[in-house]
């Protein structure tokens, strides 16, 4: 674990240094923020760097294997229904617990003038993610073309966006970011990689990836449709 920490330390420093350096440069040339605030920024970046070190190490030790074991074990049960259920459960549970979703739900509550209460929004978004995660698993198992599904989804989303009330459009497309929990992303991807590694004729890359992106279309549809129903 010590060697893993060392390896990750180099990565964290390389990851954070350019951003911190740019911000410092801006501070001394353009921004000239109060010293107190600048010190707070420096302290915050050190905390964030330490956090990132532990986060990346923990993901390697715990989170990635968790997804990998699940992905390798599930297909052995020979039940498509079970795979769908597990994918739905992960998508739904992880999304409804995501802090960003609560914030977004509050914003929709405001934009809709209270017609769409926060809890209902959170539920609908989580449902959207759950359904699309399950659909992504079905796609891996059946071998449907990713291209066709994505094309239909993107174009449908665009058409809905031009029809839906304008205030809902930015919210809907922002909600794509809610499926991106730092912890859930690695689990989903390694789950899909595990699944495609045990199915014959699947590529770890073009079948293992795509779930997160695919799942993020769910909430876009959900919020646009919600906006159309309310108007």
């Amino acid at each position, binding site marked *: 674990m010590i060697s893993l920490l060392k390896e990750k330390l180099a990565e964290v420093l390389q990851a954070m240094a350019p*951003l911190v350096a740019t911000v410092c440069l801006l501070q001394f040339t353009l921004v*000239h923020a109060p010293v107190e605030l600048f010190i707070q920024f420096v302290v915050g970046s050190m905390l964030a760097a330490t956090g990132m070190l532990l986060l990346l190490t923990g993901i390697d030790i715990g989170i990635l294997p968790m997804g990998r074991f699940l992905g390798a074990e599930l297909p052995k049960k020979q039940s498509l229904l079970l795979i769908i259920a597990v994918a739905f459960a992960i998508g739904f549970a992880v999304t409804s617990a995501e802090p960003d979703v609560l914030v977004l739900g509050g914003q929709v509550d405001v934009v809709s003038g209270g017609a769409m209460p926060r809890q209902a929004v959170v539920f609908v978004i989580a449902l959207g993610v759950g359904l699309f995660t399950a659909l992504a698993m079905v796609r891996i198992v059946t071998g449907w073309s990713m291209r066709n599904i994505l094309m239909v989804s993107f174009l449908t989303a665009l058409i809905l966006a031009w029809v839906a009330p304008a205030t809902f459009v930015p919210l809907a497309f922002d909600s794509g970011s809610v499926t991106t929990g730092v912890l859930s992303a690695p689990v989903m991807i390694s789950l899909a990689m595990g699944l495609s590694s045990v199915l014959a004729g699947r590529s770890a890359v073009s079948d293992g990836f795509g779930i*997160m992106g695919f799942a993020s279309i769910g909430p876009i549809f959900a919020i646009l449709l919600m906006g159309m129903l309310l108007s």
Partner: protein
Amino acid sequence: MSGGWIAEIADTLLSVTIAVTPLTVLFLIFQVFLLKLPLGQVAEILKGTAIAAVGLFLFLFGIGIGFLPFGRVIGEALGALEQRWLFVLIGFLLGFFTTWGEPAVRVLCNQVEEASNGSIRRSLVLITICIGVAVWVALGVLRLLQGIPLLYLLTPGYVLVVVLMWLGHRTFIAIAVDAGGVATGPLANSFLLALALGASASLGDRETIVQGFGFVALIALAPITSLMILGFLIRMLTGAKE
């Protein structure tokens, strides 16, 4: 001041707890009914999850007290600039470096290199994602300055993606859409968003909230377009049929 910090700590603790709990509970349920892994392995996974949770807490807390308020200050200063092109340029640089520092982006790039057995280099994917976000953040800044409706940027963006999907290398489609997800991680969502809000506040027009919405949508679209372009270039250069 200290009261604000305590509230920040409590908020972050709550966020991390609700982010970690469902994953852990689901894993334990699967472990009992399905996986039945040896206890040593379960302990290792739980240990890793606990380390990740502590890390996530420190990371989010650091962003909350450091990057969030400072992003806003930078945004306000940039919005007040006489030279508008400089704001666009700085938006480009900050977009690049923020994504460069986003942990989930790094995890994704590692997974890509691992899954492709090293044939797709992690650095190539990382730099492509960062360039994509940089370009779209610059466009987002232009949108703030000019008041361009979001759909005027999103529509050509998604249409471009659909077209490139057919012209480019198949392998990059899946990676590209996932990259759209991870690029909008905690750093971008707080730092870049605070920057956009600060800028639109100091530009002093329109409703700040409406302007801030949609910024994240552009960041989510960004790596999809840049990775699809990379897939297109690779297919052109290698002449691969796929």
